[in-house]
C-alpha cells in the first residue's frame, strides 16, 4: 500500500466549493478560517512559536505597562492601575510601580459626609478629603459613623446613620425616633407605623372648621393655637366631613392625587382628604363620616387600572393615581379628574404588565442566534413606558427570561464561556452551575492558544477550575484536549486520539473584536477550529486511485462537522452579522495539497 497523498484541511465552510471536495484527483485539502488565512497555511509551526512568543511578549509588556498606580491619570481618573505614561505627575500627584491596593495613597475606604451623615464606600482618601469629607480606611469593619440603624420619621422609616437621621428630621421638620437596636433594613421598614389620624376640629373666624391630622399633629396645633385651646378637639378615626362634628366641611365630588400615595382620594369642601374614591359610595353619609382602611375600600387586591368608579390603585398591581388624560386612560372617572392609571405597556403589539421585564435581541433570527454583532437586551415596563437596557457587548452577557403565570422577569447575566475550552470531560463541560458550555461528541480543537487563555494576569477571573488543576499543566494550556497538530511528533495520531472524545465549546458563542489590528482575540480563538485530515489512497491493479484511509474527510459532512465547531468558538467561520449580511470573505478556506515527503520530514 502506497501513501499517495496527504489531505490537509483547515477550517470549514457551508458554501464550500464542492468541486474542490470532489477530489477525484489526489491533493491536499486545506481549509482556513478568515482571520488566520494564509499566515497559518504558510508557516504552521513558525506561527505557533511566534504566536506564543508574541503573546508572551505582549503579556510582559502589558505587565510592565499596567503596573503603576496613578493617583490620578491624565484622563482625570483617580487611583487607577495604568501605564506610567498615563499617570498625571503634576501638582505633586503620586505614582508608584505597584498595584493601587498596595499603595498608601490609593487605599479604598469610607468617605463620610458629616454634614449629610452619609457614607460612600470604595473611595480613595484624596478624592474624599478634597471635597471636605472624612476618610476612614476600609479594614473590613464598618466605621461607627457609617453604621446604619433604623430611623423612624413620621409614618416612614429609613435605614441610615445617626447623623443622617437628625438631618432628615431637620430637612422634613419631622420628629424622628432613632432605633439603634434595629440592625436590619427589612425589620426597620416593617417597624414604621403611622400615627392615628382623625378630625382636628377648631374654631376659625367664628366658624367651626376642621383639618384631617394625626393625633400628634393635632396636639401640636392645639399648643400653638392662638384662640381658646379648649375648642381644639381631636376625633380619632373621623373625617372632617362627619355630620356629627358639625364643621363647615362637607362632601364634594372632587378627587385628588397625593404625592407618595397611589390611591385617588375624595376631598371635602375644606380641602381635607377623605376616603379612597368610590363612585358607588360618594353619596353615602357613612363613607364621609369615618376613615376607612385601604383594605376596606373598593376593589382591594386588584389593580383597578382604568376603573371609572374605584380609586383604590395599587402600584405593585399596576396602577397609580394620575390626572385623567383622554389619550392615556381608557375610561373617564365618574367623578373628579383623577383616575387609577393603568401602568401596563404595549410593545410590538404585545401587552406587558407594569414591572414586567423581558428579553429581546437585535439579531435577525432572535435571541440565541449566532450572529456577528448580535446583542441581547432587557426590556423593562414601568409606568406605561418601556425602557431598553442593553446587555454587554460581544455577547459577554446573555438575557435570561422566566415566566410565572404569564408575568415575565428577565435579567442580563454573564455568559460564562471563558473556560469552556479547557474542560476535558462532558460532566465538567456541561456543569451549568459553573459555565455555559456544550460538549460536542467526537469534535476536536486544534491549537489550544495557551496564551489567550492564560495571559490575562491577575485580573483574569477564569484561571481554571478544580477539574483543570487535577488535569495537570495541560489543563491550563488545554493540551489535554487540544493536542492535535501542534503538539506531538505524530499529529495524525493525536487527531485520532481526540476524534472519539469531544470538545467543550461555548453554549453561546462570544463575539470578538476581529477588526482590531492590535491583537484582538479573534485570531487566536478562531484558529482553534483549524483542522487537517490526511487522506490515503492506494493504486488499484488497474492503476486507478482508491481511497483507503480517512475517506470521510472527502465528504461534505466532514466540512459541516468542522463548521459546527468553528461557529461555536465565537465570531469565526461562515457567519452573518446581526442584520443578516454576510462578510466580505467566506470566513474560511480549504486547500487540497499533494503530500510532499520532505514536508513531512521537516515537520518531524
Amino acid at each position, binding site marked *: 500500500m502506497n501513501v499517495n497523498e496527504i489531505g490537509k484541511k483547515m477550517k470549514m465552510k457551508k458554501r464550500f466549493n464542492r468541486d474542490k471536495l470532489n477530489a477525484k484527483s489526489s491533493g491536499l485539502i486545506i481549509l482556513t478560517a478568515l482571520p488566520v488565512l494564509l499566515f497559518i497555511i504558510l508557516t504552521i509551526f513558525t506561527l505557533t512559536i511566534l504566536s506564543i512568543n508574541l503573546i508572551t511578549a505582549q503579556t510582559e509588556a502589558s505587565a510592565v505597562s499596567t503596573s503603576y498606580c496613578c493617583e490620578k491619570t491624565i484622563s482625570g481618573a483617580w487611583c487607577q492601575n495604568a501605564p506610567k505614561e498615563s499617570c498625571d505627575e503634576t501638582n505633586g500627584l503620586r505614582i508608584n510601580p505597584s498595584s493601587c491596593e498596595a499603595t498608601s495613597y490609593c487605599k479604598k475606604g469610607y468617605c463620610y459626609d458629616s454634614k449629610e451623615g*452619609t457614607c460612600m464606600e470604595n*473611595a480613595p482618601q484624596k478624592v474624599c478629603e478634597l*471635597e*471636605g469629607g472624612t476618610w476612614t480606611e476600609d479594614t473590613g469593619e464598618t466605621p461607627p459613623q457609617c453604621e446604619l440603624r433604623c430611623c423612624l420619621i413620621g409614618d416612614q422609616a429609613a435605614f441610615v446613620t445617626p447623623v443622617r437621621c437628625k438631618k432628615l428630621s431637620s430637612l422634613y421638620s419631622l420628629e424622628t425616633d432613632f432605633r439603634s437596636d434595629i440592625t436590619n433594613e427589612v425589620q426597620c421598614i416593617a417597624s414604621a407605623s403611622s400615627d392615628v389620624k382623625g378630625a382636628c376640629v377648631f374654631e376659625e373666624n367664628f366658624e367651626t372648621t376642621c383639618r384631617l391630622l394625626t393625633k400628634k399633629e393635632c396636639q401640636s396645633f392645639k399648643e400653638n393655637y392662638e384662640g381658646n385651646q379648649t375648642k381644639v378637639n381631636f376625633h380619632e378615626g373621623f373625617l372632617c366631613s362627619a355630620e356629627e362634628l358639625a364643621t363647615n366641611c362637607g362632601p364634594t365630588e372632587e378627587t385628588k392625587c397625593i404625592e407618595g400615595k397611589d390611591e385617588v382620594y375624595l376631598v371635602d369642601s375644606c380641602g381635607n382628604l377623605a376616603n379612597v374614591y368610590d363612585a358607588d359610595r360618594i353619596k353615602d353619609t357613612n363613607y364621609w363620616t369615618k376613615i376607612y382602611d385601604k383594605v376596606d375600600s373598593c376593589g382591594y387586591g386588584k389593580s383597578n387600572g382604568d376603573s371609572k368608579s374605584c380609586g383604590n390603585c395599587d402600584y405593585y398591581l399596576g396602577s*397609580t393615581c394620575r390626572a385623567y388624560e383622554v389619550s392615556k386612560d381608557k375610561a373617564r372617572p365618574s367623578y373628579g379628574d383623577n383616575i387609577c392609571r393603568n401602568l401596563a405597556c404595549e410593545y410590538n403589539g404585545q401587552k406587558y404588565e407594569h414591572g414586567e421585564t423581558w428579553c429581546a435581541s437585535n439579531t435577525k433570527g432572535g435571541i440565541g442566534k449566532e450572529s456577528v454583532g448580535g446583542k441581547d437586551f432587557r426590556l423593562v415596563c414601568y409606568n406605561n413606558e418601556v425602557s431598553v437596557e442593553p446587555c454587554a457587548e460581544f455577547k459577554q452577557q446573555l438575557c435570561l427570561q422566566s415566566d410565572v403565570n404569564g408575568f415575565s422577569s428577565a435579567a442580563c447575566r454573564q455568559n460564562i464561556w471563558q473556560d469552556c475550552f479547557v474542560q476535558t470531560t462532558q460532566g465538567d463541560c456541561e456543569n451549568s452551575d459553573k459555565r455555559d458550555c456544550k460538549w460536542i461528541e467526537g469534535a476536536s480543537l486544534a491549537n489550544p492558544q495557551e496564551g*489567550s*487563555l492564560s495571559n490575562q494576569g491577575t485580573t483574569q477571573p477564569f484561571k481554571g477550575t478544580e477539574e483543570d488543576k487535577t488535569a495537570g499543566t495541560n489543563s491550563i494550556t488545554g493540551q489535554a484536549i487540544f493536542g492535535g497538530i501542534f503538539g506531538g511528533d505524530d499529529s495524525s495520531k493525536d487527531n485520532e486520539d481526540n476524534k472519539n472524545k469531544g470538545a467543550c465549546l461555548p453554549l453561546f458563542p462570544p463575539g470578538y473584536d476581529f477588526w482590531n489590528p492590535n491583537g484582538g*482575540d479573534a485570531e487566536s480563538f478562531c484558529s482553534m477550529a483549524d483542522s487537517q485530515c490526511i487522506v490515503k489512497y492506494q493504486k488499484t491493479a488497474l492503476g486507478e486511485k482508491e481511497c483507503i484511509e480517512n475517506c470521510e474527510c472527502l465528504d461534505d459532512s466532514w466540512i459541516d462537522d468542522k463548521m459546527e465547531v468553528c461557529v461555536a468558538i465565537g465570531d469565526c467561520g461562515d457567519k452573518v452579522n446581526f442584520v443578516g449580511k454576510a462578510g466580505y470573505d467566506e470566513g474560511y478556506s480549504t486547500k487540497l495539497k499533494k503530500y510532499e515527503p520532505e514536508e513531512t520530514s521537516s515537520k518531524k
Partner: protein
Amino acid sequence: MKLLRNKSGQITLFIIIALVIVGLAVLFYLFFPKIQVAFGLTPKNPQAFMQNCLEDDLQNSANKLSLQGGSLEPQLYLLYESNKIEYLCYQEEYYLPCIVQQPMLKTHIEKEIKTAVREKVGECLDDLEKTFEARGYSVSLSNGEYQVELLPGIIEVSFSNVLTLTQGEEREVYGSADNPQKKIRVLLHNNIYELISIANSIINWESNYGDSETTIYMNYYHDLKVEKYKQGDGSKIYILTDRIKGDKFQFAVRSVAWPPGI
C-alpha cells in the same frame, strides 16, 4: 417721476424710523434698570428681585450639571448624545469593580452651581442696588458671601449680605441674622437632591458588585425612572428621571467591564 419721488420719500421715512428704533434700543440698554422701575416691571421686594434676576441662570446651571454628571467641565467623561457625561465611578481595567470618583457628590454639585452663577450673582446685586436707588431709596448693601445648598425638592442660594433700604423715615433691613424671614435667598424647584441620593446608591452598588438593578429603585420610588445603557467599552450611562417634574440626572460608570474575548 412722481412715483420715483414718492419712493425716495418712503425710503427716507424708513431710515428715520430705523434710526429712532436703534436709538431707543441703545437708551433702553443703557438705562434698563431705571426703565424697568419706571414701568413697574421690577419686583418691589429685594428677595423677589433676586429671585427674578437669578432664577434662569440657576435653572440653566442645574440643567447643565444634571446632564453632565454634576460637573460643569467634566474631566473624565463619556460622550453620549452630545453630552460630556462624567464618570462618577471608574475602573480602567477589565473585570474589576470601579473606584468612586465623586464620593461627596452633593458638595461637589453645590460648589459647581456656586461657580456657575458667580458672575450673575454679582450682576444681580449691582442691579438690586441700582434699581432701588432709582426708586428713591438710599441703599446700603454690605459685603457678603452666598451659599448654594441642595435640599429636598429645591436648590437654595442664600446670601449673607445685609441690604438696608431707607426712604425718609422708612427703613427696611434684609438679610439680617435677627430676621430670618427677610433673608435674601433664591429658590429653584428641582429634585436634584433626591436624584443624587439615588445616584449615590447606584454608585455604591457599582463599586461593590459591578452592577445595579434598576427595577429596585423604580419599585421603591414610584415616580422615578431609572435607565441604564451599556456602552461598547463596558461603560454604563445611568439616566434618572423624576416622572412627575421631569428633572433628570445622568452619569456614567465603568465597573466590571468585560473585554471582547478574554
